């Protein structure tokens, strides 16, 4: 089944295309990494697919629902782990989880059950009754992803989920994300190329608002005759920049 199908998805700010005629297909259960240098159009693409920003033209179907004409249904099926940690600072870990479960439609009892399950599966028991604002960056990020998953989304957007985390915390999160593969369709944006290679099924590289190449890490390296993925990425995303 196709999870995401975009049709000439475009976002234009005045005369500049942030995303230009994006045509992309992502299968259900796939972890698709979207790479590109700053300003390539990754975050704008995620914002359009998660119904935060309306496209200038084109459309996208998320599990068959248009992001323009059926955005509420799309929002019910998706969840987002934003670039920065997105938690309610004065709520406890448990309250944060229950809060998100409830705004996605769970009643109080179901929200409590879901929060308990989430606390157990994300190893949050020790800090369950601590307020989010006193947690370390790594714990906050873990909570942020747990909040994104508590609504049991069919599609999860992970916008630079490991940005600013230390190596150990990053590896822990990789473990969490790997555990979700096959169960949840994920769109991952990251600047860490090894993260994309390690976690994703397929990689799309964007530059200047356009999707330049799509394939597995090996396919992209073969295509560019590159020895490693970084060289392949530079050849695709940084054309003209690498030779300066």
């Amino acid at each position, binding site marked *: 089944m196709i999870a995401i199908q975009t049709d000439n998805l475009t976002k234009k*700010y005045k005369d500049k295309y942030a995303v230009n005629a994006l045509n992309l297909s992502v299968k259900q259960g796939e972890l698709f990494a979207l790479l590109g240098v700053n300003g390539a159009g990754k975050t704008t693409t995620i*914002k359009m697919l*998660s*119904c*935060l*920003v*309306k496209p200038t033209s084109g459309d996208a179907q998320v599990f068959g629902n248009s992001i323009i004409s059926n955005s*509420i249904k799309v*929002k*019910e099926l*998706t*969840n*987002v782990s*934003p*670039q*920065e*940690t*997105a*938690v*309610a*600072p*004065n*709520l406890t870990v448990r*309250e944060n989880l229950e*809060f*998100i479960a*409830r*705004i*996605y*439609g769970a*009643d109080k009892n179901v*929200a409590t059950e879901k929060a308990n399950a989430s606390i157990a599966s994300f190893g949050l028991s020790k800090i369950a009754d601590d*307020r989010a604002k006193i947690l370390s960056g790594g714990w906050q990020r873990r909570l942020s992803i747990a*909040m*994104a998953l508590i*609504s049991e989304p069919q599609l999860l*957007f992970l916008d630079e989920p490991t940005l600013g985390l230390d190596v150990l915390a990053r590896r822990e999160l990789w473990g969490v994300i790997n555990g979700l593969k096959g169960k949840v369709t994920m769109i991952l944006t990251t600047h860490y190329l090894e993260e994309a290679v390690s976690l994703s099924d397929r990689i799309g590289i964007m530059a200047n608002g356009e999707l330049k190449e799509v394939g597995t890490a090996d396919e992209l390296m073969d295509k560019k005759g590159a020895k490693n993925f970084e060289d392949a990425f530079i050849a695709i995303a940084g054309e003209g920049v690498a030779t300066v």
Partner: protein
Amino acid sequence: MKTVAFASRNSKEIIRDRINLAFGIGFPVVLLLLLTAIQKNVPVELFVIDQLIPGIAVFGLSFIALFSGTLIAKDRASSLMARLFASPLTARDFIFGYTLPLLPMAIIQVAVCYAVAGLLGLRMTPNILLAMIVAIPSAILFIAIGLLCGSLFNDKQVGGVCGALLTNLSAWLSGTWFDLELVGGTFKRIANLLPFSHAVNAGRAALAGNYHQVLPHLWWVIGYAVITLAVAIIVFTRKMSSDNQ
């Protein structure tokens, strides 16, 4: 359900901020105690309790604008807002979620002020209940001002606009600290064009049992509350879209 969940989160965020509680309830009460103590030591009628308390109640409500404005501005600056905008919450959920929890807080704040006034000698009559009901449009006005400021400014600017400017405006132009008739002129005309003195006078009339004088003042407050709330909703809804562009 979604609105209730969001409103509940907002209540907790506000209540768990101790500075909010100190200013929201503590400061008006301290002011009430201080001015009553001054009144006991001066030979003229400056701060008579039944004239003072409706003004203190309105002054205290101005902090509600600060609470709501700060919460909204902080949320807008955080990634949490992106998460909430990407959720099935609608514009209506956001507006009710931000405004509804503040109404009971405002009523509790007014009740605490009147209870302390009772301890300081205010005669306990059923009119106190009416005076508290009369304060509700003022509460809605200040909540709307908070929604508007939180939509337009960052949290530091909200602190300046609501915490300094609004609290001073509502204090000086309300006739709480001095009789506007004594100042007269342009000052009085400006004060009468704004809702604060009307809010205080409606409370004073209710407390004194001069029921026929309540509504003429209260209409001013209701008018300002309705217009400000409408503008705040429009601005907030527009900012919801533009913040994510």
